[in-house]
Structure formats: C-alpha cells, structure tokens
C-alpha cells in the first residue's frame, strides 16, 4: 500500500467536520475511553484508571466481592485519531511501564465525512484519518 496523496483543498468554503460513524453501545463508558487532542493527559489517565477500578472486585451489600462493571470484558480500549495519536501512545507507555500492565497497540484508518459550506452551495467529501487503539489488559 502506497502513501495516499493529500486531498485537494477546497477554496472559499468553510469546513464543517463531522464525527466518524460508530455504533451506539449503552455501556461503552465502562471500558472504552475516547481521547481527543484537547483532553489533558492526566485527565485521560484518571479516566482509564476509573475504568480499571470498575473491574476490581469490591464487597457488595451482602459482603460478596463483585466487580461493578462485570467480568466479561478482558481489556480497556483507548482510542484516539489524528493529533491525539501521540497522546494515546504516551498513555500506552504510561500504563505499560509505570503501572506494569499489559498493553497492546493497534493502528487503524477511519473514514470521516467533511462538509464544505460556501456562500451559495455546499459540497461533501470523504477523508481518511489515521487512528490508534490501545488494549489495556485488566
């Protein structure tokens, strides 16, 4: 696979970016963390640790030790695309070496939808963005 050439620029039009399409999961928040370029590094760490905490067994009302987020999930996903990729990689390094957890890294390409708003019409195009996904084993 060769390197794709950059898309031509659209002049005199305002770019409106749209989020990439993804599936809705009700309990996604318990094991998936989305990182964007404006997410502070420490906030992301705290968020991931809160996810990890959800899988640690704690005594319930009957004194039995149960994990809050269940026991079927094997890893926590940390996702980031574009500018946020370096931040995600740093997060991976943090959890691998500081926290001594097993971390897997996957690279991906994600398609996004761009809208160009001009004064008399609007045009659309698809664009590919690189992305990284971490699997932090629980």
């Amino acid at each position, binding site marked *: 696979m060769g390197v794709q050439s950059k898309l031509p620029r659209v002049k005199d039009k305002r770019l409106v970016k*749209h989020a990439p*399409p*993804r*599936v809705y999961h*009700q309990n996604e928040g318990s094991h998936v963390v989305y990182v964007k370029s404006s997410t502070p590094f420490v906030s992301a760490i705290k968020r991931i640790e809160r996810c990890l905490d959800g899988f640690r067994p704690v005594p319930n*009302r009957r004194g039995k030790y149960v994990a809050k987020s269940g026991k079927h999930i094997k890893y926590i996903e940390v996702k980031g695309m574009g500018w946020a990729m370096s931040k995600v990689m740093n997060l991976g390094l943090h959890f691998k070496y500081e926290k001594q957890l097993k971390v897997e890294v996957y690279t991906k390409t*994600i*398609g996004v939808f761009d809208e160009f708003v001009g004064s*008399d*019409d609007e045009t659309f195009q698809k664009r590919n963005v690189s992305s990284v996904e971490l699997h932090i084993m629980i």
Partner: protein
Amino acid sequence: MPRKPPKLQHNRVNHKREKMFNSRIIRTELNDRSFTNPTIANTSVITFNSMGNKLDAPSFLKSREFEIKSLEKSQLKSKYSSSTRVFQSLPRELRRRTASHNVRRVPKRMRPRALKEMGLSLNTKDKKETKGVSKSGKPLKKVHSRGRELYRLRRKSQLLKYAGKHKLSGHLIDGSPIDIKKLDLRNRLKMIRAQIEKIESDRMKVGKKPNTDVSDDANTLLVKDRRVAKQAVITINNLTGAYDNTSVNESSGIHRISSLKYATRQTKFKWLPTHVWHAKRAKMVKRWGWNLVNQPTMKCFRKTSRSWRVKGCIAWDTSYFNTIILNCASSDLHAFEILKDIYSHLSCGKALKTNYISGYKAWEGFIHINEEPVCVGSLLWIRGELSVRLVVRFHPSVYELVLNSLLEEVRPYDAISLHDCRYSIGSITVAGPKALYALQAIIHCPVKKCPQYQLWKVFSQMNDVNTIPSGSCFSFEIDDPRLWNQHVTPHAFKEANVVLESLCDLQTGNAVNKDVLDKLFSIEGRINCYKNQQSLKQLGKRRTPERSGKPIPRTDADPTIPICIIKHSNGYNILLPWFWVMPVWYQLVHVPHLMIGGMKQMNQFAYEKSQLSFEDLIFTRQGFINGRIKMEQCSHEWNRKPKSKRVQYDALNLGSETGEKLSPFGCDWRSFQVLRYALNKVPKDADNSQVFPSEFDEMLNRVIKNKFDAFEIVKDIKKSDKGLSLLGRSVFEKLPVRLDRENETVVELAKAESYEITSKGLPQLQVRAIAFECCSRGHITDNARIYQIPESQKSYWISFGRKVCKDVRGRNMSTNQLGVPGSEFIVGLSTSATINLVRGCSTGVGFIDASSRLCEYLLVRNVGSDICQVCTWHYIVLR
C-alpha cells in the same frame, strides 16, 4: 393445597430485633492462637517450640485479616440493614413519592418485602393498616373526592346548573320553547345532546353538498383547498375520533367539541397531543396559548447533560411549534416566483442555496419578518411535479405576527393557498447519542424495498451526535407502531465505509420521497392516513395469545403514516399528522434510556452547547418581553421580603462605587443602552475624580460633564420611561438593542452629537452574542455583568487569566483582592450562565456592545457580588 399457617406477630418483632442485632455485631476471634504460652516453661532445654510468650506471625496475620474483613462486612451490613427500604434500590425513574406508604407504587416483585417493612403481611389476619393502605396493600378509599372524581362531580353540578337555567328560561339553546314540567333532568340532557348532534350533522350535510356558492372560481387552488379543509373537519373515518383540523387562509382553532363533559377544556390554552401523558410526569406551564411541559417532575439537570452527549437520549413533544404551509401549482410561474420571494424574505436570503432550494435539505435559522429576526424556525421547500410547497415551522410566541405577515403577502393571489397546520401537524424531537437507535426501534416501513427506508436503515444503531449533517431529511411511510408490542432492536450496524457512502447519498436528497411529503403536507393525505386508525381496544382484540411477543399481522385496511424526519441542531425532528403523535410517542417512551424533557431542558441543551436558547434571544421582541417579565417578577419577589432578609443592592460596596448601576433583577438592556450612549457623550478631558452637582439645560435635561452625570442619566431615563408608560404611550417601539452578526468588522458607536439622550431619541445599540468560560473556579450566574478590563489593570488581570499568579504555596490566587472596575467598563450582560457540566467550570452566554474593543479576556461579576472572574470568550456564530 393447605396454606401455610400465618406467622405470629411477635415473630416479626423478633425478626426485626434479630436483624438489627446481627447488623451491629462484629465478629472477632476470641481464642487467638497466635499467642502461645506453653505449660512446659520450666524445662531445662529451651527450644523454639517450647519458648514462652512468642508470637505466631502467620496465624496472627490470619486472625487480624478475619477481624478486618468482619469489620468491613459489619459496616456494610449496618449500612444496608435497617436504614434502607426496598424501593430505595430502584432507579430514579421508577421511584414514586408515595412508595413509602403505598405498596402499589412499588414494582410487584418488591411488594412482599415492602409490606414486611411496613409491618404488614399478605397472610396475616390482623387489621393493622399503614397510612392510606389496607393490609392487602390496596389504597384505602379516599375520604374526599380528588382528581378525576372531583372533576367529574364538578362537571355534573355544572351541567345541572345549565339544565336548571334552561328550566327557568323554558327554552333550549336555539330558543325553541319546551314544556319542562313534563321532562325529567335526564331527558333534558338528552335533548341538549341530541341538538348538538343535529347541528353537527347539519354541518356535515352542508359540507357534502357540491359547492354551489362558488361555482365560478371552483378551479382556483384557494377555493379547492377551502372546500377540502371544510370537509376534513367533519370527516371521521375511524373510531378514535381523529380528523384533520386545517384552516385555509385563516388562523385555525380547535372549535369542535368532542365530548360535552369536557367542553370547558382547552378554551384558552390548547393541549399538546400528549398532554394527559405529560401532565402526570411533568410540571406544566401555560404559555403562548399552549399548555406546555416546563420540566419533568424528577430532578434531571445532570441526567439531561449526560443524555444529550454521553448516553441515552431526550425526547420532547414539540407539537406546539407552528407549521404553516404555502402551496401553489408548479405550472403557475407567477405564483411560484411569489412563493420563492416569500421563502427568500423569511430566511433573509440565506436559504437560497442549491441544497435547500432543491428540497434535499431543510434550512434552519432565524425567521425574518420585515428583515428583522423574530424567532428560530425552519423552512422546507418541496417542488413536486404538480405542486410547490413551502413549509414554515416557527416558535409559537410569534404565531400571530408570522401568520398575519404571510397572509398579507398571500391574500391578493388566488393561486396561492396558506394552510395553517397548527393543530394538524405535530412533531416529536429526539436528541442524544441514542436518538437514531430509539427512532429505528419503533419505525417500521410497510414497503420493505422502499429506497428511502433502506437508506434510513443504513444508519441504524448509529451513535449520532453530529455525524449526520444538520438539515438532512428523510421521508417515508411507516406502519402504526402500536402493531408491535414493544420496540425492537434495530438492524446491525453497517460497515463504516457503507455508512459514509450513504451519508453522501443522503446529501443528494435520496432519502426524500416527495410523494410522501405530499401526503403529509396535504389535507387529503392526512385524512387518508387516519382512515381506519385503530383504537387500543381494536388492537387488543387483534392481539391473540398464540402470537404473544410477535407483532400483530398487518392488514390492507391498516393505514400508513407519512412522516418526515429532519435533523436539526437540536436533534431529530419527526413531523407527523397530529393524531398520530400520541401513538408514536407512546411507543417511543418505552425505549430504554430515553428521558423526557421540557422547555427548561431545551434551554439547558442550548446553553451547554454555547448556543442561544429562547431565553437568550433578547434582540427579538418576544425574547425581550420575556426578559422584562422575568425582571419584574424577580423585583416583585425581592420587594415582598422583609428588609432584613433581602440583599441591599444599593449599599453594595464595589470599590470606587456604591450600589448596582443597572437593575439587579435581570438584564436591564434599556439602562445598558442609555449607559453606553451617555458614556459616549462624556468629554475626553472630563474630571472624573469626584462628584460635582449636575447642570441642566433649558429643557431640564441633564448636561453630561463627567461619568457621574452619565450614571445619573440612567436613572433619569428610567423615570421618564415610567412616566411615558403611565401615560399609556409605548416606550419600546424600537427595541433598545439590535443584533449585529458581522462579528469581524469593528462597529463605531454613533457620534456624540448625532443623538439626544431622551426616552425616544436614542438609537438602537448594536450587540453581539458571545460565549464565555471562567478561567478559574467560581460560579457565574444569570444576569451577570460583563466588564472590559481597564487598561491600567490589564497586566494583573491577564496574569490571573493565564494562571501565572500563584501564592506562596503555588496555588492559583483568588481574585478577591483586585476589586471591581467602575461601571463605565460594563460592556455587556450575561443572559444565561451557570456551572457547565460539559466544560467542568462556569460558562455563560451573553451579549456585548458591538463597539467595545476587548482583549482575549473579560471580567464577569455576579449581581450583588463584589468579586470579578476572569473569563475567556468568543463570538457565537449565528445562522
């Protein structure tokens, strides 16, 4: 099978005591084996085993571990044992206020335990009762009639009075005399009912007659539409009583009395289609001729914030938004041009883009009347083969203004007809990541290969907050959603690539079926969709036990519903015929994780996105009036308090000044306008060091010599305004502020010589919408004042904004010490501000004077406070 013998009562008491005892006890190991004290201590040879008083570390640790665990356990036990009631474990949606004493408010599976907690049991023979509940858990009979029963009794007494009145006068409604002595009350009521029926049937006969009165112009669109609309009101083709209530070229109303019993309902304030459903679950408010949902009964500030952006979704019944449809034949070019002109005027020329004019997308923005923005609304342009339609949806506060202005434009032309669909097209708005999922779960198309529906299905299960562009349109026909027992899981998510392709397809209008739109926006189409609309009873009969869990099979007689789904900035807006709103709503609210919202939630939604809600539109007349009303109410409440209990705004120490210069009860745009223009008149070399006695000209107007005169003149104008309004003259023919949308260009304030500072002589002040965010901690509230940073203190404040200023311990410093700038630095007011759960700090929305030159920071001070907060800010881009 013999029943179990009932337990004795004292057992229950014992059980409770035992439970309490168990929860308080902490188990310990009394015989601790870790301390060994062997008896053979006097032996001559001391070995490790025979050593006295040694500590056995492993068993010591084990023992302590046991004790710590039992301590933790007992903590949990005592926490959960006696202090909790069973309904406390329910999620908040299922909690009821009366669940503590009425077991019927608790889900069935929890009832035995709830009864036990109340000291009752289903099996006991005792006659003990708790408040309002019998021993079997049923509520006791009420002593007084309440709710519906009370309403029924009142109606009865009113009807009796009504009948009594006729008895006295001795004639019926139409004046025909009756011999009342021969009739009893029941017969008299029967006669009244029969008369009403007769009037109705007479009307129907008139409607059915071929129109003889307007035979000459029978071919014009207007006459045809009028006839159809008249016919529609009296046509009932179903058992549910659904009919189309559209008026052609006039304002529509609900005139038809469906039941004599409820004749007095909805006289002044109309109901939403889901009114009865909402009235049980939300706080209602009467506004703009509607009974609207203000907020759900349950507290939901945090939940709303999560629902629209993280998980779940919010649904509103937005049927109160008015729909007006302008029609003309596509062959009539002259009428077409006029319609296009109206379309252009309403959007101020902004909706003339190719995508909107071709009907692929709906336009959303400010609706303009006489080039002035009046409210937020949307426009949909549909050009079919036979007809052209312009659908205008707008806020109910400006209903009369928009309707009259459109009527004025349309009236001279017979080729254009205006349909007021206020009570014939309803809508539901769903917002949040689960919005698409929720809609997909209840919408089923009868034609499986319908291309529009296929495209809609591609986006099933999609988490959509802003993936689908705003303005996108879908339209197709759907089945009655009540044929399905409950919502279904939508189809699996397609590959991301397919979805992206479909998104492009969507933009070229492939999801719009113009025939369906024709059905939805024409009177005949809506009448047809009510044909054979099933009542719940009818549906219940069709639902056989052997098909439980499966949908009721569709028959050819079942109607299809034309719908239009439009993605707006505030979520998915589903337009559908009025009497189909309730069935769809009822299915929709059974989708899990969907919460209902009211107007407050709508405002919060806009605020958290840093957009303007209705409450912020102070540059429109209705928004401005809304602000004035809130101000008066606030001032009234303040005045009602005793002097010792209210904040003394006049005595507030604000550094160089004392007291608030603008009204502390709200955003006082009038005083703000006067202040800005008066300060503009202060000479540059004025002596602002101390207060001098003011001078007056020959007209007894104050001459502005320094800033203190400018502050005084604000009070003068306030008095003069009050005088004018007492004389019965309108003060605000022109609003004090005007929106300036060109955020890039610098606006100069009018030259000091060009205007007089009088109640009528001031030009409008140009304002721009801004959103700001607090740099540090601090809670900014509504009506806060926005200050420009004075040049002399700029470096201090900016260092606070950049968090460079730290105290000895390296923490951010408080801004308490820095004081408050003078009122001459006020550049704006904040319309809504509070803690923003999205940003995690205080943010707000407000308006600033367009002529003010601000650096990257500004200061915000709450009313009645002497602390300023440093904030970053940006302009809000308005469409």
